[in-house]
């Protein structure tokens, strides 16, 4: 309550100031301003992405509260401006423009899918603002106006696949790639094919299939997978890049047709704990996913984060599960902390100054690493992990990298 009173008092102050001084354009972004500094939170709360993106919105607000409780950034409170682009890709561009031009936000945190990021990209570039993007994605992009908080495939997918090809990982020799039909799965699979070719995997051992968004009838595809796995040539795995509602639909069909991880492991690249909600995961035990963070990591920072989130969900009576924290949420938190550190170091809210201050900066990662911002390309160096689905709708950590891994924005495996 106190915070709300404070904000509304400050808010009316801002209105009064701006009414009196219309010529001052970048009010909130100027270091000399006295009102709260605004951060844009561009996460859908309706439509297909609402499930996942609303988690990121709420944990951003939590992190902002925590920063404010410690006195804010450079003596100014931080205010999260929430907008709802409704899972509609062009809307992300429109709303980011609104955030930058009329709300004068200092930076934007947002987007889940690559399509939405691609839609915001021209806006942040034209306005020279900053977008902090918390998802692992296909790479092949490098903009000075985007901060990539999660891993490109070189430091997440490829190490995971490499592990699965070792004797320990089950000696995968044949690969069924199944994805939703858009840029992320297609690029990942292209890269993976290039990579597998260098590993001596013949083309006949690779199958690639795509389904439309929200596809839910996986009968014939699962049958195909079973037939593919039965063919000679060694152990088959599925590399699953379907997104959204298709993930539980695919898993349900796989369970019903009797696929178990011991026969055909599924490496679900976009599968997070929230996708397992509503599924009986006992028959899914052992299927895999790879991220920079799984909530089973046993570190003091992670225990703190999990308990903070649980009490925040309870206090705000949110509809989320209090006992579930997923990688993109952690990446978002790290992004906000990174921004706050950089602003403090630069003594400025200006994107150019923040960008300069960020290069080479380190930030604590609840996954047990110290993440480091690359000195040149604005990709964050993170650790990587493979999680194995357990019967309690979560992941056990099967394997993790010893240290943070260098991100490679442009993969050598994508042929022009």
């Amino acid at each position, binding site marked *: 309550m106190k915070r709300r009173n404070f904000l509304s008092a400050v808010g009316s102050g801002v209105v009064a100031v701006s009414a009196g001084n219309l010529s001052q354009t970048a009010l909130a972004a100027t270091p000399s301003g006295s009102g709260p500094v605004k951060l844009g939170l561009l996460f859908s709360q*309706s439509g297909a992405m*609402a499930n996942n993106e609303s988690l990121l919105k709420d944990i951003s607000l939590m992190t902002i509260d925590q920063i404010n409780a410690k006195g804010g950034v450079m003596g100014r409170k931080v205010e999260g401006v929430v907008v709802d682009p409704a899972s509609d890709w062009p809307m992300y561009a429109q709303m980011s423009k609104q955030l930058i031009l009329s709300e004068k936000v200092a930076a934007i945190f947002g987007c889940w899918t690559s399509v939405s990021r691609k839609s915001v990209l021209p806006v942040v570039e034209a306005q020279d603002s900053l977008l902090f993007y918390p998802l692992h994605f296909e790479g092949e992009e490098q903009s000075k106006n985007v901060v990539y908080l999660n891993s490109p495939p070189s430091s997440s997918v490829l190490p995971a696949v490499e592990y699965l090809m070792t004797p320990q990982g089950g000696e995968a020799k044949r690969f069924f790639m199944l994805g939703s039909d858009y840029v992320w799965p297609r690029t990942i699979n292209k890269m993976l094919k290039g990579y597998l070719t260098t590993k001596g995997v013949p083309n006949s051992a690779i199958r690639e*299939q795509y389904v439309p968004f929200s596809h*839910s009838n996986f009968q014939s*595809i699962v049958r*195909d997978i079973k037939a593919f796995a039965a063919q000679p040539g060694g152990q088959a795995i599925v590399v699953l890049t379907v997104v959204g509602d298709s993930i*539980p639909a695919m898993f349900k069909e796989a369970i*019903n047709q009797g696929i178990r991880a011991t026969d055909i492991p599924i490496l679900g690249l976009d599968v997070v704990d929230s996708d397992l909600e509503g599924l009986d995961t006992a028959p899914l035990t052992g299927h895999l996913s790879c991220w920079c963070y799984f909530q089973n990591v046993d570190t003091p920072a992670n225990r703190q984060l999990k308990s903070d989130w649980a009490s925040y969900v309870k206090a705000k009576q949110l509809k989320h599960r209090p006992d579930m924290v997923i990688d993109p949420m952690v990446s978002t938190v790290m992004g906000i902390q990174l921004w706050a550190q950089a602003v403090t170091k630069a003594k400025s809210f200006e994107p150019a100054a923040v960008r300069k201050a960020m290069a080479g900066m380190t930030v604590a990662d609840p996954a047990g690493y110290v993440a480091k911002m690359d000195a040149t390309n604005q990709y964050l160096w993170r650790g990587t992990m493979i999680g194995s689905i357990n019967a309690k709708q979560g992941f056990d*950590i099967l394997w993790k990298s010893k240290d943070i891994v260098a991100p490679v924005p442009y993969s050598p495996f994508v042929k022009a």
Partner: protein
Amino acid sequence: MKSLFEPLRGTARWRRWFQHLMLACLCGPLLQAQAAMPAQERSSIVASICTDPGSYRGALDRIVQAVVGASSEDAAWGKTLLERLQAVAVICRAQGAPVFKVDHGVVDAATFEPVTEAVDELPMVPTLVLARLLKTSQAEIELFSPDVLIRRAAAQRMSQAYAQINEPLVRLALSKAADPEVIATLELALAKRSLASGSVEVRVEAIRAMGKAPSESTRSLLQKYQEDRPDMSAGERAALTQSLSQIDRALEVGKAASIFFSGLSYAGVLLITALGLSIVFGLLGVINLAHGEFIMIGAYATYVVEKWLQAHAPGWFDAYVFLAIPFAFLVCALIGIVLEMTIIRHLYKRPLETLLATWAVSIALIKLVQILFGSQNVEFITPSFLQGGVQLYPGFFVTWNRVFAIALGLVIFATAYALIRQTRFGLLIRATTQRRDTARALGIPASSIDRLAFGLGSGLAGLAGVVLTQIASVNPSMGTGFVIDAFMVVVLGGAGSLVGTAVSSLILGEVNQLIEPFHGAVAAKVAVLLLIVLIIQRRPQGLFALKTRG
């Protein structure tokens, strides 16, 4: 299949004796009564699994021996160890003996004594390799289960993981087996192994045996055999050709059957989702964009029933799907009637305004459910009788949830059809929709008939929601995907014709599933849309047009 070893009895008697001798030697330790294993030995078995992936095989063999051996203490320990390993509850410590995580803390992995000092390491997560071996070991033990169904499943695993099984143990199980299915499956497992045998006769027998058990895996084994042995004998070649053609024939039939079945099940889903719309849009002429949201509300009504049963009558839990049928119907029908009274009734004959109004309603309903239940997927525990499926024929696997969707779709369709064609209420609906003014002149209360018909359509959408809980994921925005498919079906079938709706969902379902296996799901969707465009161009009124004078 029993014949596999029979010729040996006649031709090479000594071989059989030799087999027995081998069995006695190898399984000797299994049969003898032994004293319980010392704790140190148990500890070392667990520790070797913890540290050395190369020792998995040997360690697991010893655990299986302990379980099927004579000492009941060892058996209990071995079972617990396998169970704890699979439940990710074995903690390998850097210092001290390995421990089990149990409900009330941690216990020593060898003695089950409670461990007092704090254990802060995480349990070992089995690698894929270990998980596979664990599953096989578990099945090896289950070969001796008193339950025949468990023995059959265990035998299946032996056949599937034939390369890693403990052969003497399987031979022992085979010698004790009485169930013909278990015997056949175990003999198949051994046949797969004996493809690598040194004797030509054994190999030929194995090839013949595999021809009689057609499946994708026997086919690829034989194909590999063919590639690996270019210099095989004429006898082998003949047996191989015959077996492969047997398998191919069976699998072709299986594949055709499964394509037809998936088409049928997709058609079932389309039929259920479109049926309500066929009444609302087809008979009443209301373009109801909120149709998908009625489906969604039906699904959430099922969720409410599920949660209520879970809390109040757990014994009846599995029946929630059936209890939800009347509940979802009533909830959706009521909401539909209220919607008709407040909004739709003022907009008849103004399609554009109806379209906008129902669109607004659909957004409002999504938001309402989001506030009440949150935007995440809600959890449905599939009733036990809808889990899994059955292999009807080699390569033809039928899942129960799809069978349920088809069956319920047919029942709902038959009921709705009877209601519209056979009852007085149906007659009144048809009269009102076909010639409204004449019907009113004859004293039919047209506006209440409209209301009830709209309620019926909404209720049917609710039933679709019940079925979809078992197939699709349920969240507030699930309806948007279905409404477009539903309109396609109704438009293609011809507005107002229930039979048209059924036929068009069958066509769309089968065409879609016929194309999908060969050209992918995206192409299937495009092809279906093109097909609809072509048909609508030739027959704008749809396949089964209602002949009216209005």
